[in-house]
């Protein structure tokens, strides 16, 4: 038998759902831009990112479903769970508002996922490691795309700088949750301190270059990881789960 597995099955399932839900909800938010982005190329970029995130979410859901058993599938996990069963970061469900909010939210989450997958690709669970190694190449693109937009807008015109600053001032209260570990997260034995340090350095470098003012923030909204969400998630799920709720067991 392989090494010292100390993670309980329940903790692992919850952790897989936490990452999958975060990727799915962010993917859904990005897909709301489809047909509405400022220019065609960026519309395509954002929908591509949404597709990558959806694929990553599917891989985590499929693995979680396998561990759960009981006829659970990726679809039942995505379409049939209730709001309080979703574990995504509150940051992921925040509304698109304008392009500034969208690219900053993406930059925050992609940067986190990048450093997380760096560690998870060495995880003792081979399936988790495989998904992380697959995903990190995609996430590197997302970090670059979103980070460049934060700088382009922050260090752009007076108007774009103001919009970027507004997004930053609003979203800052949701970034702390990323690093406040839920119980199931602690069980996964991930070195969150290192991820947080790298994340803060990368974010500070980009925000500096973007001429945006920020300060370390000790306050953060929390609850997403344990199913206590902002009012926005309910609306997302209502739309996303509409078909399965209206026509139960419908398939393609």
């Amino acid at each position: 038998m392989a090494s010292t597995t100390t993670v309980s099955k329940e903790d692992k399932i919850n952790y897989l759902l936490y990452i999958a839900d975060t990727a799915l909800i962010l993917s859904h938010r990005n897909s709301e831009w489809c047909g509405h982005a400022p220019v065609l190329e960026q519309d395509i970029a954002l929908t591509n990112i949404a597709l990558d995130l959806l694929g990553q979410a599917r891989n985590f859901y499929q693995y979680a479903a396998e561990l759960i058993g009981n006829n659970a599938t990726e679809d039942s996990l995505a379409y049939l769970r209730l709001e309080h069963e979703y574990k995504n970061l509150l940051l992921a469900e925040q509304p698109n508002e304008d392009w500034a909010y969208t690219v900053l939210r993406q930059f925050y989450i992609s940067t986190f996922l990048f450093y997380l997958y760096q560690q998870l690709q060495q995880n003792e669970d081979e399936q988790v490691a495989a998904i992380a190694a697959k995903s990190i190449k995609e996430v590197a693109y997302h970090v670059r795309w979103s980070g460049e937009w934060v700088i382009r807008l922050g260090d752009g015109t007076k108007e774009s700088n103001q919009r970027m600053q507004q997004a930053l001032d609003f979203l800052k209260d949701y970034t702390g949750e990323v690093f406040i570990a839920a119980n199931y997260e602690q069980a996964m034995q991930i070195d969150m301190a290192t991820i947080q340090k790298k994340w803060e350095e990368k974010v500070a470098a980009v925000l500096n270059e973007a001429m945006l003012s920020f300060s370390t923030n000790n306050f953060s909204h929390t609850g997403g990881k344990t199913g206590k969400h902002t009012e926005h998630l309910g609306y997302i799920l209502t739309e996303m789960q509409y078909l399965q709720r209206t026509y139960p067991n419908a398939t393609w």
Partner: protein
Amino acid sequence: MQETKNNNTSAEELKKAVWDVVKNIPDPEIPVITIEDLGILREVIINDKNEIEVIITPTYSGCPAMDLIGWNIKTELEQNGFKNFRITNVLSPAWTTDWMTETGKQKLKAYGIAPPNKKQIVCDTELFQQDEAVPCPHCDSYNTKLVSRFGSTPCKALYHCNNCNEPFDYFKCH
């Protein structure tokens, strides 16, 4: 009952027969290249009961073509009389454009898509990197520029040729 192919051949022959049948299945999104050219088709395994396992791997996590590719492999094998097979989708090791065959790259270029460069460091988050120098598939000029890192499918980027003025897709290295 007609005898299935599985029974008549040795494991080595069976493996080759399966490979030869499925290797020419086209990629649904870029039909000029096959799943073998792309490196999506990884392996055919025959166990001691002469059961067949076809191993495939996705290009990108969200590649919507994988379900269709699996379906096409199934159809192709059934039509050619193979039984007792299954198709397994693996993620590790992660797909890379390094696995694309030379033939595949030539077919892409002839189709008007610039083939991937030799692998570079893709897991790098440094911003505003110098764009990859990609020769135009129409006129071979290096006087091209990146329009968008994301194109019509996850595997492609949008470029523009300053020499012949044509836009083109680049199958980005991954």
